[in-house]
Structure formats: structure tokens, C-alpha cells
């Protein structure tokens, strides 16, 4: 009898829904059906059963073709490439669990590598703003139960985080928000009329790239000063109206996305958004949250901050201490400046996401991809190592966009012989220790290192 598994986490977008139900075949190998997931969430579960999925590492040959090799060979190649490089870059982690991220942290320390995650090309500017100005944030549960004025700034959850609006931000009825969307005022700041903007009570169609000016205008009017007749393409009356709604709300929530943190000024757009949130708190309660893209992209920030003190762009090449300075130690800058000589792409697709020039530079050196699926990066790699799909075939801890940790389940077994990210990187670490004739201290202290149920393996 096929079996329904409940309270399953969805390994797709940053909403990290944990209320999915998945129907699994008798033999526990195939996902038959899902409930509660949105279309993209549903897709990821069916992806696992794709018969064309690679199940063995594939190594590029001299003539450009690829050949299947064993995991041992792949682990040996990766360990040697990392040890040989003067400054390897390990990047990715959009889609893996915290256990895997922690294992990679141990490898990176041994390799003297730069450790970076997708935030580098995504919400990295948010980190910089948070370093400078703090993070007056809350959980999505608080948003659901309290927020009656919700601002979406440069983000479009209707497409990027499909269930965000129904579970947390617009529609749900909460403890103090018993009338759901009837009780909420939605303000959307976006140069385009997105599907989220269509739902909004007020849509401020801002001139692209002028977010900072509009925030400054809000702050100026909140302090009782006058502003020019038009700021960032928005009329003064509209700014006053939106500012009035925020001031008179009981709980104002600002969600922002790439449209805010990746237009000119980047971190300062978030920086001033945080200042605005702080200003609003002298009138009412207000909070702010980054719309993180992937289900566990908040994870590396948590794990590496614990391991090394920094959430991303962690340069471990000095061997004595971690150094972080995006602009210098960020993946794109390192690649464009030819500052790294080995690249490991884990659980993401640098081939698709990086500027072509950056990929060209990286391709001069060993290029390794660790990912369950075929992607652009895997196809240009010297070595592609497939792993189990977290949240489908591998359990683990993930951090939702509000930095709440959630234990994700596995629902089916992975393909025979395919390793998890954690197993793979622990073996790479052990191989590096063998090659350098050093003690694998982190493996000996594995219980201490992650303390999960897999500790006894």
C-alpha cells in the first residue's frame, strides 16, 4: 500500500513550507503524489524519480567526453585539487542541509579555501547592511498573527514564494489578524506591475534604481519634514499616504527582495530600509525581513557564523583566522579578478548564475560540481559528483527565511550508492587528511561537530 507521509518540508523556496504531505510507493522509492505544495514545490519531489538522473560521478576526459568513475576516485580527485590550489573557492549551498554545509566548512578550513554561498549574488548586500545597522526582524509566525500593514519592496512572492502570501503575509487569519486579508493593508513598491503589485492597496511604481531616495523620503516625512513634490518618480501625496498608513498600522512588516538589494547602492538600500524600520518603531511596531530565495539559503549564514564568525565570503586561506570583505572575498570578484585557482560548485548552478566572464576565468582551473542533477555548471565541469536530494532523499536541518530552524524529513530512499553532501565532504576531508598525513580531528570529534543522529555511522 502506498503511504502518505505528513509534515514534510519542501526543499524549494525560502518559505520552506513544512506542512506538505507526500504519497510514497510501496517500496519507498518513488513519490506518487503531493498535497499542499505549490506547483514548483510539487515538481521538486517528482524530479527525484527522473530516470535520467546521474547516479555516479562523471569525469571529463581529454577528448571532452565524460566517463563514469567511482566515488572513491571522485573523492581523491577533489581532495587533491583542493590541496594543490593556492586559493580554492567553494561556492553554492542554495540547496543542501546544514549538516552538509558544516562538513564543507571542515573541508574548506583544511583546504585554506574561500567559502561562499549564493547570498554572494543574492542577499549578500543584506548581510552588509545588517553588519552596519542591525536587523530588527521577527518570525513569519509573528507576521501572520500581528502584521496589519505589509510592505513588499522589490519582491514578487506571488511568483517567487508562491505560498508565502497564503501562509504568512496577506491572506492568513492570525491571532490579532482574525479577518485575514480584509484587515491588512498591502503596499507594494515595484517598478513593474507584478502579480503581487496587483494585490496591493497601494502600488508605488518607483523609478528603477531609486529605492534609496524613496526610503529617505519616507524617513524625512516620518520626522515631520517636507519633501520635494516628486521623489523617485512617486508623487508626494502618494508618499504621504503610504507613510500615514505605516504610521497608523499596529504592526508594519517590510519584506524586500532582489529589487531592493540589487539595484544601485545595494547594501545601502537595505541599510536605509532598516533605518526606516527603526524610525517606524517610534510610532508603532515595525519589523523587516529579507525574502531569502532558497529553502535553506539562510543555513550557511547560520552554520558558518557559528564555525567561523562570518556568514559568507569567508576567506580561510590565511590558516590562522577567517577574513571577510565582500568586494574582495566574494565569488564574482574573486573570479573576475582571477584570484582563485580551483572552483567547487555545491548545490547550485554557477554556470547559469555567474556572469559569463567569471565562468571563463574559473574554467582555467579545476572546476567541480556537486549537485543531484544535471545543470549548466555540471555540464562544463571537469568532474560532476551527484548526491542525494535533501528534503526528498536526505533529512536535515534547514533555516527558513526568518532564520527559524526546521528539521526536514526524507520521504524516499536515494538511488543506490549515491552519497549525501555530508557523507561526500566528510570523505573528502578524510582523504585530505590522509594525503597530508594529519589527524582528521573533525571526524574524530564528529559527535561534537554536528551531534545529529548520523553521528554513530
Amino acid at each position: 500500500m502506498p503511504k502518505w507521509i505528513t509534515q514534510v518540508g519542501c526543499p524549494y523556496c525560502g518559505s520552506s513550507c513544512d506542512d506538505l504531505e507526500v504519497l510514497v510507493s510501496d517500496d519507498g522509492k518513488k513519490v506518487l503524489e503531493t498535497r499542499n505544495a505549490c506547483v514548483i514545490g510539487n515538481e521538486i519531489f517528482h524530479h527525484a524519480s527522473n530516470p535520467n538522473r546521474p547516479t555516479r560521478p562523471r569525469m571529463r576526459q581529454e577528448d571532452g567526453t565524460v566517463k563514469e568513475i567511482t566515488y572513491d576516485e571522485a573523492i581523491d580527485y577533489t581532495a587533491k585539487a583542493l590541496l594543490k590550489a593556492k586559493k580554492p573557492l567553494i561556492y553554492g549551498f542554495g540547496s543542501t542541509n546544514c549538516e552538509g554545509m558544516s562538513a564543507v566548512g571542515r573541508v574548506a578550513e583544511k583546504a585554506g579555501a574561500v567559502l561562499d554561498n549564493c547570498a554572494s549574488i543574492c542577499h549578500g548586500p543584506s548581510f552588509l547592511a545588517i553588519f552596519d545597522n542591525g536587523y530588527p526582524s521577527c518570525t513569519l509566525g509573528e507576521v501572520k498573527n500581528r502584521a496589519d500593514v505589509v510592505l513588499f519592496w522589490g519582491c514578487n512572492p506571488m511568483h517567487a514564494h508562491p505560498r508565502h502570501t497564503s501562509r504568512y503575509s496577506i491572506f492568513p487569519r492570525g491571532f490579532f489578524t482574525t479577518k485575514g486579508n480584509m484587515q491588512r493593508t498591502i503596499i507594494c513598491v515595484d517598478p513593474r506591475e507584478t502579480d503581487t503589485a496587483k494585490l496591493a492597496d497601494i502600488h508605488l511604481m518607483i523609478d528603477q534604481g531609486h529605492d534609496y531616495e524613496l526610503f529617505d523620503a519616507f524617513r524625512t516625512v516620518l520626522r515631520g519634514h517636507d519633501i520635494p513634490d516628486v521623489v523617485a518618480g512617486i508623487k508626494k501625496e502618494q508618499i504621504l499616504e503610504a507613510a500615514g498608513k505605516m504610521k497608523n498600522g499596529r504592526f508594519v512588516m517590510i519584506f524586500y527582495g532582489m529589487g531592493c538589494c540589487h539595484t544601485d547602492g545595494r547594501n545601502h538600500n537595505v541599510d536605509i530600509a532598516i533605518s526606516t524600520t527603526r524610525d517606524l518603531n517610534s510610532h508603532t511596531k515595525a519589523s523587516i525581513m529579507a525574502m531569502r530565495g532558497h529553502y535553506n539559503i539562510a543555513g550557511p549564514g547560520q552554520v558558518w557564523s557559528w564555525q567561523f564568525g562570518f556568514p559568507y565570503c569567508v576567506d580561510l586561506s590565511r590558516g590562522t583566522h577567517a577574513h571577510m570583505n565582500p568586494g574582495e572575498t566574494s565569488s564574482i570578484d574573486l573570479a573576475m579578478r582571477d584570484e582563485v585557482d580551483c572552483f567547487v560548485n555545491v548545490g547550485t548552478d554557477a554556470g547559469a548564475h555567474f556572469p559569463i566572464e567569471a565562468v571563463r576565468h574559473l574554467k582555467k582551473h579545476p572546476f567541480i560540481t556537486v549537485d543531484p542533477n544535471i545543470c549548466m555548471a555540471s555540464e562544463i565541469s571537469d568532474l560532476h559528483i551527484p548526491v542525494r536530494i535533501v528534503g526528498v532523499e536526505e533529512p536535515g536541518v534547514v533555516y527558513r527565511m526568518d532564520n527559524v530552524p526546521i528539521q526536514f524529513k526524507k520521504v524516499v530512499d536515494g538511488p543506490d550508492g549515491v552519497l549525501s553532501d555530508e557523507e561526500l565532504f566528510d570523505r573528502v576531508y578524510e582523504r585530505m587528511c590522509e594525503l597530508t598525513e594529519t589527524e582528521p580531528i573533525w571526524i574524530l570529534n564528529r559527535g561534537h561537530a554536528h551531534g545529529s543522529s548520523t553521528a554513530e555511522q
Partner: protein
Amino acid sequence: MALVTLKPYKEPELYLECNNISPDAFAGKTAAEISELEVREGKTRVRLGDYFEVSGKPGDTAEQTEIHIAGDCSRIKYLGTKMTAGSIKVDGNADMYVGGWMKGGKIHVTGNVHSFCGIAMEGGEITVDGNAENYVGSAYRGDWRGMRGGTIRIRGNAGNDIGTFMLGGTIIIEKNAFIHVSTHAEGGCVVIKGDVEGRVGGQMVKGDIYVLGKIQYMLPGFKKIATVEKEIDGVSARFNHYIGDLGERHPRSKGKEIYANLFVMAS
């Protein structure tokens, strides 16, 4: 002043991190000892002498030591970081962190510099004949105490984030700048002799900015209060005087709020 000359003879494959190229590190050493100083290329430790021919002899103290780098330093980071006295001259470009955390002495780069030039500087003088990239005289990430003293002069253009979180000192950009001048500043003076695209003085608490060219997008938090005659860096002219950022917190003194000043040359 006793002169040490470094002649680059080999290009590193990646970049060299040369925290050791400073009058403070060289003072009192022989040329041979200076060649032995450790610099880094990624995780590998190399000798300064592997990349530079060292000649001359430094003084006994940093103050008496003059360093001349006779060649391009496009792939050399951290020139003159944390130096307290003496001087460095580079014939050509230099990479990131020129004069970062500098406390005293002089640096002169005849070409361009990359980002983070004069980051968190406390004193001394940096002159760059070419252009600078981003973060000239800015604070290190997360530090609310930025540049505190000294002078940075960029004779060409500069990128974004000039004087972020600045508390004191002077930055002069002789040509144009991109965006974010004196963001979060609580002191100091920035002079832009050319044009700026925008975000001049955002979240600024105290301090002065002079723009001798045009600001394409003025922040709504700045208000014009007067037109004044001023002399700045050898230029006398009429300036429109703005105060701001009205959206930001400001200290009070004698019952009055103290604002940052922005002077834009009147056309």
C-alpha cells in the same frame, strides 16, 4: 630619509598579500632581511624577495624610511596598511587596501588604486594620481567608526562609498564620483570637484561635503538654507548650502539640532 627600492620582477599568479610592505616593517632591517619578509599568495607563504628585488637600506625608524616601488603593483594588496610614519611611492597601479588603517606618513601612487584605499584611516596622507575604485576612506564592514583623520586625495575619479561612516579627516576626489558619499558620516569633510550621480550624504549625521560639479539626483532629505561664499581646496566660489539628512537622527547642542552640511557650487 633612507631609501629602500623594491623592483618587481615577477608577476604573481594570483595576488600577493603584502601587509609587510611598510616603513614600520622595514625599519632597522638590511636589504637581505627585507627580502626574507613573509608575504602570502593564497594559502602559500612566500618571500618578498621572490617577487621584488630589494636594494638600499631603510632608516632605524619608520619615520626615517622611504620606500620606492619601481614598478607596477596591480596584483599587490595591502601596501602601506597600518603604517605610522615614513613614506611609500609606487610607480604605477596598486591593488586593494592601499593605506588601510594607516596612522601616519605618506603614500603616493602614480597610477590607479583598487577598492578600500584608506579604509578606516586614522592619519597621514594618501595621494593617488589616477582613479580609485570603491570604498575610498570608508569604514570596514560593520564598523561604525570609519575614517578618523588624515587626507586622501584622488586626482581622478572614484566609485561608490566614499567616506562611509567617516568621523574625521579629509577626502578630495578631483574628478567625478559615482554614488554614496559620506553615508552615515558623523564628521570629516569630503570634496568632490566633479559631478556625482547621487546619494550624497544619505543617513549623514554630521560633517561637511562640497560638490563643485553637479549632483544628478539630490536626496529628498536635504534642504537648501542659504547661498554662501566659500573657499575650499584652492577654489573660491558661491555655494548653495543644504542641511540634512533630515530623515536621520541628529545630536542637539544648545537647544538646536546639528545637521550635516552639503555645499553644492551655485551655477
